[in-house]
């Protein structure tokens, strides 16, 4: 209660002027409809779980078929557990309020890059007890996803979803520019810059096609990694935004944009795209190539199935395939009154059988609606293997079949965000740092030096 008072009181004053931040839906799970449950996961030791459970950060009623099917699997497996879903995505403000209330969450579904912040403050329990009780094999998760939720050698959450980034190449634009997608060496930054200048198309000073979109600041860690560095130390405690590898990557990627013309006009043009529609930037030939999360293949397949694309892995300068991954996770909140039910829920939601049931439901739904689907990337390797073997059939869409294969081939080469106490502040500092360079407000050196100081400050102020 002593902690509740300051939280609630200060929120009243501060939120009075601010208002809430709207949750962003996860495009990975875009879709809809509910499906009957598929029964309890056979791969887990059943727990004797009953009573009430409050799960924060998960929407059942408004969730998609993947969310609803998995929750139904849990309900079938543990009918004596009465789960209250928060029916919202994860938001720090609401989660903090919920923690301070008399009815605090038992489990939480949160982005993996936030785990480090809450672990540093003792909000989450390690999952070792839960793993012991259920016999859950955490090796089924991709190594990078496990690293996202591991602090000081202890796992604090079960990973869920696995969003990775690869190059999506618009073959039509490459053909227009006389470039063979297969022969362009994406490990050669000079070659990318040269292709960029050939691919960009203008009408006067108005851009009508972007050449290469480096997707910065979001994917800066990918460029820095390709350049032999990292934006943050592996333990998440030291910002490396002012390292030479980072500064060079910022300079190179912002120069890629500036080489196409006025960055303000470039950004304005990009904001006109029908990103989720049938006239998207690939279908409308408004982009040459860009690194992108794999869920976008589903958008393309469903809205513009005739586009001609090639997916290639992001490469380091010495030619090694890499990808940046992220996703969500399920964690148990410290001090839960119902640890067995909490454990049963978090393990069931990410168990292989549960994912397979959800993927099957999605495939049936897609078939019913005569829509293609490019699969669910669960973060669980065992589940992914079954899903893509049995429930993803793109044989009549060879372009997308090859694209999905390229994504799957690069899954194991992923790295993620190290779990950091100051993840949110770090990302803001990084974003601001890159955007200052993009807008011409500062040199890469000055801007990233300031960003590094702000990022380190954010990490230090949340460190335990």
């Amino acid at each position, binding site marked *: 209660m002593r*902690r509740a*008072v*300051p*939280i609630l*009181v*200060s929120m*009243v*004053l*501060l939120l009075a*002027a*601010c*208002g809430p*931040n*709207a949750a*962003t839906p996860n495009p990975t799970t875009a879709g809809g409809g509910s499906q009957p449950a598929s029964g309890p996961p056979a791969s887990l030791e059943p727990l004797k779980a009953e009573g009430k459970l409050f799960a924060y950060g998960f929407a059942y009623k408004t969730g998609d078929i993947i969310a609803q099917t998995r929750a139904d699997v849990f309900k079938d497996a543990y009918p004596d557990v009465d789960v209250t879903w928060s029916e919202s995505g994860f938001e*720090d*403000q609401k989660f*903090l309020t919920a*923690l*301070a209330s008399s009815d605090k969450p038992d489990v939480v579904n949160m982005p993996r890059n936030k785990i480090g*912040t*809450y672990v540093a*403050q*003792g*909000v989450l329990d390690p999952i070792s007890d839960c793993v012991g009780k259920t016999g859950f094999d955490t090796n089924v998760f991709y190594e990078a996803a496990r690293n996202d939720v591991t602090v000081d050698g202890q796992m604090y959450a079960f990973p869920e979803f696995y969003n990775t980034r690869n190059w999506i190449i618009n073959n039509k634009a490459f053909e227009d520019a006389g470039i063979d997608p297969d022969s362009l060496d994406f490990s050669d930054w000079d070659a990318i810059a040269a292709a960029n200048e050939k691919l960009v198309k203008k009408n006067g000073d*108005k851009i009508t096609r972007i050449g290469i979109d480096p*997707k*910065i*600041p*979001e994917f800066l860690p990918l460029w820095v990694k390709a350049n032999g560095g990292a934006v943050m130390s592996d333990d998440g405690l030291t910002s490396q935004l002012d390292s030479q590898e980072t500064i060079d990557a910022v300079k190179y990627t912002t120069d890629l*944009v500036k080489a196409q013309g*006025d*960055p*303000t*006009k470039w*950004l*304005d*043009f990009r*904001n*006109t795209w029908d990103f989720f529609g049938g006239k998207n930037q690939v279908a409308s030939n408004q982009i040459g190539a860009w690194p992108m999360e794999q869920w976008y293949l589903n958008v393309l397949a469903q809205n513009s199935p005739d586009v001609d694309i090639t997916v290639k892995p992001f490469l380091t300068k010495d030619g090694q395939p890499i990808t940046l991954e992220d996703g969500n996770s399920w964690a148990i909140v410290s001090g839960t009154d119902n640890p067995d039910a909490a454990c049963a829920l978090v393990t069931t939601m990410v168990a292989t059988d549960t994912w397979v049931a959800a993927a099957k439901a999605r495939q049936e739904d897609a078939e019913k609606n005569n829509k293609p689907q490019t699969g669910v990337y669960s973060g669980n390797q065992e589940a992914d293997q079954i899903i893509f073997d049995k429930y993803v059939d793109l044989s009549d869409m060879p372009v997308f079949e090859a694209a999905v294969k390229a994504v799957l081939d690069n899954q194991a080469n992923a790295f993620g965000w190290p779990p950091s106490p*100051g993840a*949110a*502040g770090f*990302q*803001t500092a990084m*974003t*601001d740092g*890159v*955007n*200052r360079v*993009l*807008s011409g*407000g500062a040199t890469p050196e000055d801007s990233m030096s*300031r960003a590094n100081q702000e990022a380190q400050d*954010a990490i230090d*102020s*949340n460190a335990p």
Partner: protein
Amino acid sequence: MTAGIQGREVRVIGGVPWTRNTRQDLKWVLLFLSPWIIGFIVLTAGPMLWTLYLSFTNYNPIRPVTNFVGIENYARMLKDPHVLNSLYNTIFYTVLHVPLSMGIALLLALMLNRIGGRSAGFFRTAFYIPNVTPAVAVGTLFLLLLNGNSGVINGVLGFFGIDGPSWLNDPTWVKPGIIIMSLWTVGNTVVIYFAALKNVPLEMYEAARIDGASAWDQFRNITVPMISGALFFTFVINTIASLQLFTEVYTMFFGAQQGQSSGAGDAAEFYVIYLFHEAFEVFRMGYASALAWLLFAVILVITVVQIRVSRRFVYYEGE
């Protein structure tokens, strides 16, 4: 002080004789005001005082321990470039937005005042409708309208042969773009001015016309003085609201765009947005509380100055 009423000596407080009836009336007044008084103490004054205390601590809602840090948070503000930048942006916006919104609202109210018949109701509703639009929707709408490439505003400018700027990505034009967006919701001010204009006695205009006053003279010497109370009220209220601008700008530049490329740079960083970031994204609630108190002090000083200055310009009936 005492006064003699019906042969009895009665205390006088604030010019009001303190009789049994007065005391009875006061009880009823307090009873009816109590919901507001309780709400103010519990939901406004209490939290404000609590944040004053928090502003001297390193309070972080997910940290188990809170320490008293003296004036460290206030000292930190002096060195924090975001504070100066966001204050500059906010004051720049306020200085332009408040007079512009008042001027446009007055113009619209004067036009409304001249319209009679059925169309009057239509226009009153039309001017007010933008005010009932959710702020998030306004922000999203203006992302489309202000787009430098395909937005309506640059489309109109292009019709006149003007190559419109990048309102959303050029740091020089970001704040003017935000000001254009904010003028969308002048309906509240229009309604206040319209009501004030309706209360100006028509005899004054008749007398002025007989004396040969021009339309401008009438406006300057009758309309403006007679509605100066409403002008002053909106001046104060709009200034406070401008200094607290948050939702629309957050939606346009920070919400779904979080982490994405933007040419806005530091131009869209407004004070309350920075405060929100410190409080709810990096959890430095103690520092955010100090930021909130600085904003409170700024608003207080500006409002006091406005009230002082207004004494020379504002006419209240009955004075």
